[in-house]
């Protein structure tokens, strides 16, 4: 390897042709060469050398003890009737054993190298990364030979069809991934609809108990899901669509003095006596807007601090979100429970291109 390369050219006035904007100073000070080797204490005194050797040995012995201790701790602290304390103790003791077992090997080896191994610095010639002229000439020759012998340049049709074939062969592999998830118009359709419908009762998250308008006092906040959204199916199995639906249907219910609200024309009847329901899914990137500040009527998203003004139909007043939180129109049914008038009138959650 070393014979096939040129030695790196030193930077002096004779080799300034490829230095670009480098300033070549003919009077530059010359490199003084390697410093004389300095002896360590362990080189000079036998006492120090012996002490260092003892320290290294002691570290390796300590490592053995620590590793053995780790195994002891594994069996001595079984995780029966667990408490957090037991888990922590087991973690600490097994971990300490493993850790000291390794630390002592490492520190011992480095200590050995630094105090006892010969510490003469060695200089080795560096060779240029590029091959020497002969090597490069031979490389070109090989390529030319390969070209001649295969006729790669000459046989245009073969070459071009090969390019085409190579360009196309990975495509099936990419197309196969289309079944990762549904595509087509129903993707957007699903994003537009939630589990809310006319007459769906508003229920407490996560237990699903419906909420009476009379239970909602001024200033209170309810985390709400549709009553129809159940964690378990009727047969008692777990509902696998539960989280998907909840991710769109989660709602925050707040009651304020009716005079606080400033509904725009057409939305006057979406609230019930100062009770308003807004989508809890942030219109920025979808975190739950879970924080409500009573005095200012502001809703805050804890992820990126988008702030929505409940008094003004949840318009964005701060932070990276752009759209107001969608409002769920609500009313009260004959038994006094809060119900939805309809689904949301726009898609909830993060914006998407087709919305």
């Amino acid at each position, binding site marked *: 390897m070393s014979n096939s390369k040129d030695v790196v050219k030193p930077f002096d006035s004779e*080799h300034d042709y490829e230095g*670009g904007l*480098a*300033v070549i*100073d003919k009077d530059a000070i010359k490199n*003084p060469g*390697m410093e004389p080797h300095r002896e360590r204490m362990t080189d000079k005194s036998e006492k120090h050398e012996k002490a260092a050797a003892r320290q290294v040995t002691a570290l390796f012995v300590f490592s053995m003890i620590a590793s053995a201790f780790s195994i002891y701790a594994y069996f001595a602290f079984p995780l029966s009737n*667990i408490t957090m304390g037991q*888990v922590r103790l087991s973690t*600490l*003791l*097994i*971990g*300490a054993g*493993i*850790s*000291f077992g*390794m630390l002592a090997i*490492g520190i011992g080896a*480095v200590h050995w*190298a*630094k105090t006892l191994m*010969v510490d003469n*610095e*060695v*200089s*080795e010639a560096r060779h240029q990364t590029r091959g020497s002229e002969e090597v490069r000439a031979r490389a070109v020759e090989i390529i030319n030979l390969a070209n001649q012998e295969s006729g790669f340049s000459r046989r245009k049709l073969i070459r071009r069809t090969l390019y085409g074939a190579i360009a196309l062969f990975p495509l099936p592999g990419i197309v196969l991934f289309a079944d*990762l*998830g549904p*595509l087509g118009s129903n*993707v*957007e359709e699903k994003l537009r609809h939630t589990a809310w419908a006319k007459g769906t009762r508003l229920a407490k998250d*996560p237990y699903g108990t419906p909420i009476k308008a009379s239970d909602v006092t001024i200033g209170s906040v309810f*985390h709400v*899901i549709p009553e129809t959204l159940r964690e378990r199916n009727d047969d008692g199995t*777990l*509902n*696998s669509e539960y*989280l*998907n639906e*909840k*991710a769109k249907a*989660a709602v925050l219910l707040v009651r304020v003095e009716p005079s606080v609200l400033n509904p725009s024309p057409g939305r006057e009847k979406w609230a019930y006596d100062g009770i308003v329901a807004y989508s809890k899914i*942030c219109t*920025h*990137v*979808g*975190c*739950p807007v879970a924080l409500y500040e009573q005095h200012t009527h502001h809703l805050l998203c*804890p992820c*990126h*601090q988008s702030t929505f003004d409940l008094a003004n139909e949840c318009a964005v007043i701060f*932070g*990276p*979100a*752009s759209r107001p939180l969608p409002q769920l129109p609500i009313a009260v049914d004959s038994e006094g429970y809060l119900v939805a008038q309809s689904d949301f009138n726009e898609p909830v959650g993060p*914006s*998407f*291109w*087709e919305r």
Partner: protein
Amino acid sequence: MSNATAKAKKGGFLAGTANYLDERVGVAGILKEFGRKVFPDHWSFMLGEVALYSFLVLLLSGTFLTFWFQPAMTPVIYDGVYGPLKGASMSVAYASTLDISFEVRGGLLFRQIHHWSALLFVASAGLHMLRVFFTGAFRKPREINWVVGFGLFVLGMAGGFTGYSLPDDLLSGNGLRIIDGMIKGVPWIGSYISSLLFGGEFPGESIVARLYSLHIMIVPALILVFVAIHLFTVVIHKHTHYSGPGRRDDNVVGYPLMPVYVAKAGGFFFIVFGVIALVAANVTINPVWNYGGYDPSPVSAGTQPDWYIGWLDGALRLAPTHLEFVIGHNTLSMNILLPLVVGILFSVLVAAYPFFEAWVTGDKREHHVLDRPRNAPTRTAIGVAGMTFYAVLWAGAATDLLATNFKLSLNQVLSTMQIMLIVLPILGYIITKRTCLSLQRKDREIVLHGRETGRIIRMPHGEYIEVHEPLEEFEAWKLIDFKDYAPTLARPNAKGKITIRARIRSGFSKFYFEDRVAPVNALELKAAHDHKEIH
């Protein structure tokens, strides 16, 4: 050693094994080539080693975890030993994470080793990148290896994020929700990409298993390939060294691989593993049992992503309000695209820097002696500006915590960050460049006039002078040995035309090298000494 040779001669076990291996795989040749390879010594060269070793720890601890972790999102009712969550419905993935933590001895330890080493991997890789940047180690012939290393840093982030999302707890689920929201914001294809990634609607039942494939197969395999290329290139180039007496661009000075580097680097692996294990044994990280399984409705305030995702989260937060536009029937979410574009652009600039600097200097020589950061003032200043930009984005991910802990207005913290994002890098640039130039001038002073001793003497004619102690030749060399560049004028090409390219390059060369301090040369040194003798 002589003992071993003696044994070998007698035809003992060692000699037999060595002979067997040499006749089958040629170990003698390999040892001859690599056994005494020279490695330079410097503490900053350990940073890359820390990254490499923490990756090995990641592989080992991660493999351990795969024996218990179940990457499925099927809902189950938890029936494990952790009381507070008994009877709660959760995904299989989350339940198995709880089982690893509470029912497998050492399981929690290894979860924490895995998480801590992931944090350390990205951190040490980042510091290693900074070391390489500020010492100019990316210069020819190492530009491509810089890009490979940059790829490793990105892969480290990818590995970290895919792993963070696996336990399917409340925090990681919210992290995925944010990713989903960002993907949906991509024009035209966003909702389809989201559908493909999540297998339908968010959160679906597929994402954990898919991230698991990425996390334990594809990302680590890519990292391994990149690490192999990274290290193989180091073997081809041989390691850089800092300037010092006897260190030149045509040699490499240091200790031989066998025995010193095997002991030091091998021992260092155990130290890295040992330190990670010690931290993991003592310091809880990601206590997922406190958060509960993922549920799209609750969220805990004040939560943070792992540190290396912070700058992207900060970019999301710092985007100004009302950047969303409706064009016809479509919505363009610039509040999401802008941070994405900023993040990608920043990364591209980082990856491309070596090629840019090489174009400006036009220096085609191989560089193996490292720069001290002060000796490349403009590069160092650019580096600090970049670091500052990253740091502000990173701090931006903690606007809420800054506001609550320091009792500040959240809105003011955020607006201040938005301003700082533009102003601080510029300030950082100016301050760094001036500092570097001053340090260079100080170095010149020291070389020419020696070091200040603090000893004041009175001359016979009454003048007071401070005695300066001249530098040893070896000491002085470190302060003299650097490459000096001068700005260039835009010159006409062969056709007699000054191209725009030439003008731009000339402009950049001025930007880089207009303020410069040249290294002391022999004439100046002689003049300074003669002057002193006359004195």
